[in-house]
């Protein structure tokens, strides 16, 4: 007789060239135990698993959901087995393939450690490339450095509920990546009126004009589904570095590239002319409230 355990979908989580940040981010999920109880963990590098690394590299088992963390390096071996053989074996039999993080999605940080050969599972930056081209219809990219735990929880929940996950042209779920990181940023009013942050370490001002913030050009829900259920980069005055996009990491991450003192990159889908016109108008106003301190503490101590 089969127990309920046998019917659980089997997850296999495998690592390429990675920092394990996606694993550790996922461990922050508030309802981790409830979620994991609904699956069988065939293999995970840290969580208790049915099989060991040695066993899964024998390529005898199958999984329903194949999660890959890290960049794909075709020369890498795990337990002396070429990673290409491992990835193809499990992807071939899996109903769902999830690229967890920007390295697995587009190459990310660890594409740079061997730029001529490392890539994501089906993309090298935004170009279709990588070991799983034949199975690309089943690949969901959860870009982000790292992934947000709720994003992975969403995908697993949709799979459990047997619901179709719609994706964008880069295979990212549209319900998670239609937003921009800019949406929900607590500094939005400063963006509207083009009031830039004078300095780091302040509550006031928008980080788009000087500090390098990429939030208006970055597809993610970081300011909608908060990090650690608490905050986000821009909320603590750190610029968005665009870590969910295929071109991550860019360079000069703490300063804005400008062209005649206007940011070189303008928000997604807005023409430069429209942006310039609006900026020109907004800049003609002096709004005292936005130029001053948000909270005027009597700081005499």
């Amino acid at each position, binding site marked *: 007789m089969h127990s309920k355990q046998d019917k659980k979908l089997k997850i296999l989580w495998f690592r390429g*060239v*990675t*920092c*394990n*940040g*996606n*694993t*550790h*981010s996922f*461990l*922050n*999920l*508030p309802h*981790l*135990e409830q979620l994991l109880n609904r699956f069988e963990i065939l293999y995970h*590098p*840290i*969580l*208790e698993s049915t099989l*060991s*690394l*040695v066993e899964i590299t024998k390529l005898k088992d199958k999984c329903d959901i194949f999660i890959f963390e890290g960049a794909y390096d075709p020369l*890498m*071996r*795990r*337990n002396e087995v070429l990673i290409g053989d491992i990835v193809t074996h499990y992807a071939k039999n899996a109903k769902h393939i999830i690229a967890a993080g920007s390295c697995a999605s587009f190459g990310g*940080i*660890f594409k740079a*450690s*061997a730029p001529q050969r490392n890539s994501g599972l089906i993309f090298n930056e935004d170009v279709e490339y990588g070991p799983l081209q034949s199975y690309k219809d089943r690949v969901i990219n959860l870009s982000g*450095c*790292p992934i947000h735990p709720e994003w992975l929880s969403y995908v697993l929940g949709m799979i459990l509920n047997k619901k179709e996950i719609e994706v964008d042209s880069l295979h990212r779920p549209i319900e998670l990546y239609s937003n921009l990181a800019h949406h929900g940023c607590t500094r939005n009013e400063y963006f509207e009126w083009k009031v830039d942050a004078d*300095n*780091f*370490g*302040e*509550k006031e001002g928008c980080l788009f004009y000087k500090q390098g913030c990429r939030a208006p050009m970055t597809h993610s829900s970081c300011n909608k589904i908060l*990090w*650690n*259920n*608490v*905050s*986000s*980069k821009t*909320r*603590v*005055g*750190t610029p968005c*570095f665009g*870590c969910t996009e295929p071109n991550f*990491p860019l*360079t*000069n*991450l*703490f*300063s804005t590239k400008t062209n005649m003192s206007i940011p070189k990159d303008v928000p997604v889908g807005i023409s430069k002319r429209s942006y310039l016109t609006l900026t020109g108008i907004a800049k003609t106003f002096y709004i005292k409230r936005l130029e001053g301190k948000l*909270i005027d*503490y009597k*700081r005499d*101590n």
Partner: protein
Amino acid sequence: MITKEIIEKIEGEASVEFEIKDNLVEFATISFPHFRGIEMILNGKNALDALVITPRVCGICGHAHLMASVRAIEDAYKNAGYEIKNNQKIEKIREFTLIMEIIQNHFKWFYMTLIPELEKLHSTSLVQTPLKGAFAASLAAKAIATFAGQWPHSSYMIPGGITSDPTNIDILQVQTYLQELSLFFENETLGTSLEDFLSFESCKEFRGLNSDFSYIEEKLISLEMHEKGFAYDKFLILGKHSFTSVSKLNKTHAVGIDAKFVNTVEAYSPNQITYAKNAQYKKEYYETGPLSRMMALNFPIIKNMHRRFKDSAYSRVMARIFELAYLLKKASSLATTLTIAESSYNSVVDISKITASGLGVVEAPRGPLLHKIEIEKGIIESYKIITPTQFNIGSSSLKNPTPAQKAMQKLSKEEALFVFRTFDVCSVCTTH
């Protein structure tokens, strides 16, 4: 007989080759097989980009890398004639988030590494609760995120300060997370209050407890781990912090030191490819991490434990749990003394004006983490990272073994594998 074991359920992956004689480990060589090339990636980039790239060395201790990076860049500012003096608020918040990262690490290690491995070794069922560790760690991560925006992979420390400007609401929130975390630790892990635990004077007092901790402690004794896993009984602390003191100890005798005397040597791993170099202090091996940091403080119980059990696997494990208690208390006191009065950031000259080298040293969860940067007009000319696991778990020859190699000798293979993990291995850091 030679056998090879792949070590998983650690940070990354390692491989240990054992030379077995009469069922005991004669010698073991260790290799870390996966190259990642962060130092190379940094070359030619703006020095400030290191604050974004280096936390990505490691998913579990990236915050320590961030702090080592910011210290290295600030040291370069100083060497270029632009000394940065951070105020108390900046220093305290940085210190607080670093401590919270160590706390999350130790919780995960205790519940997700130590307990399952002990279970294997003892072939009995212990407390089947690895996800408890993730829960506790996630509370610590919330406290970090309140100031740092997110954990893992925050970049909120910058030369001259921090990017966030917390309110009293944030500080109160952080205090609440800490209270919740301390309660969890007292009720679930310890079975007694933090205060009581920290005031214990002898390991015998553990016996009165009934908790995850006391259960583990009994199992360690019954496996004779207090008589096994000895390294050199020499300890090294290099990062300057409020919670420890920079020193090296030969048994209990402490002397002051300077991080500039750290050196690296090629690893000895004749049959396997490894990308790790061994780290030493003045060409000698030292153990680093919680046991070292605790040895540098004056807790009666640590002295008592060391007198009886030296640097055994038992002491190593107990010190990590004791450090967890100590740091939770330290974090609580930091959080209650935080004020918002001072500024979060003080302007510094543009990085393009800086041509200098800098050294940043911090205590990461597993010990000293060193970042050395060379900057030419704001651009990284060279970046070198030395990680705690390189001190503890290098691979050397039989004549001069590293602390972990020494600790594994003359044990059964199964015991040796357990002792290996008492060092809390971070393979990803090691093959940065």
